[in-house]
Structure formats: structure tokens, C-alpha cells
């Protein structure tokens, strides 16, 4: 379980990116974090594993306060938090397998990681994860040889290799096409359900968030302005989060997109016959 208490972040420039965020995320819950650009979504999830140092507040994972750990202890605790990134953030010139195994870096001594001699158990688990995300036969390829969707699945496998207790997901679909986005979101939600893993997902595609999230938190100018189920996310609420805009038009656009996808599928099926 993750608990944020009064979490705040003020950057050196004086911009308050987060002010007094208090949240509790129980086991197995997938939370979508929505909000306009600059609302502090990225800062919020980066404050949890301290890629960004919070200015005030507590980050309680279980009963450890991550916000006041020393360097070594922080490294140890980061193993418990898997992170998935917007532009995949794979190490492009390493192989798929090395990328997945890099999820074990916090567990192995330097010489093992340097010589790529991971314990048998880690290697076996890496293969199992690659199989789970459907990339069993790509293990020896270099990461930059994969497509966007495949890369993001490697990113997921890397995060899971940490055997995390929490997943932080930063705009997982921002550089993917609509169909691949849905596949990735489905894979993420399935995996979280399988492992009873809580996840915080930054996402700016509102319809996608409504489709896949169990709970949605709206952030505006560093403050939580909405916290509820996708069903409660009405037009009024969206206006509070994002400011005025014609949300129905956006939803219609989304319907058009799925209609076009369905159409394309039908045509492919017709060609196959």
C-alpha cells in the first residue's frame, strides 16, 4: 500500500509543482493520474521513487518513509518500485535481454551485472517475463531494432523483473498509435490484476483512462481536484481539471477512431478469405 502525506515540491525556480498532495493507494488498485501539461503529474510519480526530490511531505510504501532515506537505503527501496516510461527509455544499444535483466541491477553485485552473469533464477525469470509480454524470440535483438509497442513491452518486463510492490507508469502510450496503446493498457491492467500490484498511471488520453482505470485522480496546478471512479468523471469535472473545452467532441473523435479501426479490421478479414 502506498500513502502520500502532504507531498509538496517546489522547484528552484520557485514554481510550486505539487502542493500538499495526500493520497492512499491500496493493493491491486490501478489509478489514472490525469491533468493538463504542467499540472505536476510527472513530478508526482517521480517524487515517489525520488528521481525528483520532494520538498516536503511523506511517501510511505508499506511502513518505510521513502522521502527521508539516505543514498544506500534509497537504492534498496527503489527495487520495490517498478517504473515504466513515456519514450520507453530502454537502453537502445543493449539487447532486449540486457534491458530486462537491468531490472535486477539493484539485487546483484556490480561484477555480476558487469560480466552479465546474473543468477540462474534471474535469467529464468527474465525469460518468463519476455514470454509473458510475447517477446520470447526477440531476447537477443538490440532494443532499437524493435517497434514502439514491442519496446514498451520490454519496458514493462524490465519493471516487473524488479519484483516490485508498486508500478509507476509515466505516459505509457504517448508515443504509440491508438491500437497499440490499447494493447499496452490491456497488458498493464492484466499484469497488475495477476500480481495484485498497485499502479499509478500518468495518462493524458482521457477516454483511455476511463476505459482502463479503476480510479481516477485529477491534478491541476499541483493540487488534487478530483478523486473518484471513471464513471464520476463528468464533463463538469473535466472542465475543473482542464479548463473549458468541448469534451463531447473529443469522445466523438474517439468513437470515430474505433469505428475506423473496426472498419480496417473487417477489410483485412475480407482480404484474408
Amino acid at each position: 500500500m502506498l500513502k502520500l502525506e502532504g507531498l509538496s515540491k517546489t522547484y528552484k525556480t520557485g514554481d510550486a509543482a505539487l502542493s500538499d498532495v495526500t493520497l492512499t493507494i491500496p493493493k491491486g488498485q490501478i489509478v489514472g493520474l490525469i491533468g493538463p501539461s504542467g499540472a505536476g503529474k510527472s513530478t508526482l510519480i517521480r517524487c515517489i521513487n525520488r528521481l525528483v526530490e520532494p520538498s516536503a511531505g511523506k511517501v510511505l510504501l508499506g511502513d518505510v518513509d521513502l522521502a527521508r532515506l539516505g543514498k544506500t537505503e534509497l537504492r534498496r527501496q527503489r527495487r520495490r518500485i517498478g517504473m515504466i516510461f513515456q519514450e520507453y527509455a530502454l537502453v537502445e544499444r543493449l539487447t532486449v535481454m540486457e534491458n530486462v535483466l537491468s531490472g535486477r541491477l539493484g539485487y546483484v553485485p556490480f561484477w555480476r551485472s558487469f560480466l552479465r552473469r546474473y543468477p540462474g533464477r534471474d535469467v529464468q525469470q527474465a525469460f518468463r517475463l519476455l514470454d509473458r509480454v510475447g517477446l520470447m524470440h526477440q531476447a537477443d535483438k538490440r532494443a532499437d531494432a524493435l517497434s514502439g509497442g514491442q519496446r514498451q513491452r520490454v519496458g514493462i518486463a524490465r519493471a516487473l523483473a524488479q519484483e516490485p510492490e508498486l508500478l509507476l507508469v509515466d505516459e505509457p502510450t504517448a508515443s504509440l498509435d491508438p491500437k497499440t496503446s490499447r494493447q499496452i493498457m490491456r497488458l498493464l491492467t492484466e499484469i497488475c490484476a495477476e500480481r495484485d500490484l498497485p499502479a499509478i498511471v500518468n495518462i493524458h488520453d482521457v477516454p483511455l483512462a476511463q476505459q482502463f482505470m479503476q480510479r481516477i485522480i485529477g491534478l491541476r496546478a499541483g493540487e488534487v481536484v478530483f478523486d473518484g471512479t471513471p464513471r464520476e468523471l463528468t464533463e463538469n469535472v473535466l472542465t475543473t481539471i482542464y479548463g473549458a473545452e468541448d469534451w463531447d467532441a473529443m469522445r466523438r473523435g474517439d468513437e470515430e477512431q474505433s469505428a475506423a479501426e473496426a472498419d480496417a479490421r473487417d477489410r483485412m478479414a475480407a482480404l484474408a478469405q
Partner: protein
Amino acid sequence: MSTQEYPTTWRRPPQIVTDRRWRIALQLGILAYLVLALGSVEVDWQRVSVGLERGQRFIMGFLQPDFTSRWGDISRGLVESLTMTLTSTVVGVLISVPIGIGAARNLAPAWLYYVCRSIIAVSRALQEIIIAIFLVAMFGFGPFAGFLTLSFATIGFLAKLLADDIEEIDEAQAEAIRATGASWWQLVNYAVQPQVMPRLIGLSLYRLDINFRESAVIGIVGAGGIGATLNTAIDRYEYDSAGAILLIIIGIVMIAEYGSSYLRKFLQ
């Protein structure tokens, strides 16, 4: 749509000095300086004609290179130069990698950053010949001084370019590795090394090439190698042997250049 007449000509507005009067004054000033400076160069035409004659003899020697009569000296100089080149590049690279990492702002703490940047600055500020003169005075004539000179120069060159390259890595990849709980060494090994390795190898090969050329130059001030042989040949007015040495240097530089550019392409 408006019915306004739009102009048919457009000129790029001046970007740096916007005032027309200042621009003209500046141009006149530069012209005046150029004329005065050229006027102050003293040319002794009699000396030039003597020099041209000597140059002609030099070119004749160049056209009839004599590889054989001094071959013993030439081959000894060549072996010395090549040994100096290879050893100094290897040693220089080995030393410049840790210094380069230390001089990268995104990896090193501030104090280490300044220490490493100062080492680089010193190495880059001193030209090879100056270091060579100094080291020859310290360790005597011969290739050892040359080896030290080239190693020292390699550190400044390679460590600076490596550090700049490390500072420009894709931070997202480093962030992802850091988020797994990796240690600093693991971060360098997994996030930095894969990103800078091709360039590091390319730069090392390029430096190998530079070091060979420099070994010919520093030989003239006594640091051994083919440069020393060339210097001796010119001092003895043996322009045919000097021509042979120059041809060999050109040949080896070309081979090294093509070889290293081929290897670099292969590595990409």
C-alpha cells in the same frame, strides 16, 4: 481577404549591427586596419629569390626520392614513431576514460568535476611541441619523451570529447536505470557506456591517426621517431632522403585515415 497591396521585394534585415552608420564605420575600420597591417609586413625580395631556389632544389629532391641510402635511419625512425604512436594512444585512452567520466557534470560531484576539467584544460592549453621541448629537457632526446608528450596530449583531447559526449547522453535511459535501484557503477556500465562507446572507439582511432602525425612533428624538437630522421636529413641538405621520408609519412597518414574511417563506419 483584404485588398491591400503586398510588396514584391523583401530583404533580410541586418542581424548583428542594426544601425547603418555603425555598419559602414565598422567596415571602413576593418579595411583601414587590413591595409595598415599589410603595409607593416617587411618583405626582403632578395631573400625570397634565394629561398625560391632552395625550394626548387627541395622539390627536385621530392620528385627523385631516395629511399635507399638512408634506409637504416628511416626504418629505425619509422619503427620508433609507430611504437610511440600506438603505446601513447593506448596509455592516453586508458587514462582519459576515468578523467572523462569525472569531467562529466551529470555523473561526477562538483569538486571532482572541477579537478578533471582543470587537468583537461592544462593538457589542451599546452601545444604538443611545447610539451615535447619541456619533456626532452627533462628526460633527454629520444622516443620516451615523445611517448610522454603524445600520451599527455591524448588525455586532453579524448577526455574532453568523452566528457562532452557523456553530458549529452539521453537522460531518460539513465533515469530508467537509476529507477531500478542501480548503483553508480552500474549506471555507468548500463546507461552511459552503451551510449558513448561507438564514439569513444571512433575518437580513439582518430587520435591514433593524429598521434602518428604529431610524432613526426615532435621529432623535430628531439623527441625521437621519424621527425628526428627528417630533421637530420634536412640539416644535411639531403633533400632526396627528406622527400622519401615525407612520402612515407603521407602514405602512412593516408592508410591510417582510410583505415580508421572504414572502421568507424563499420562500428556504427
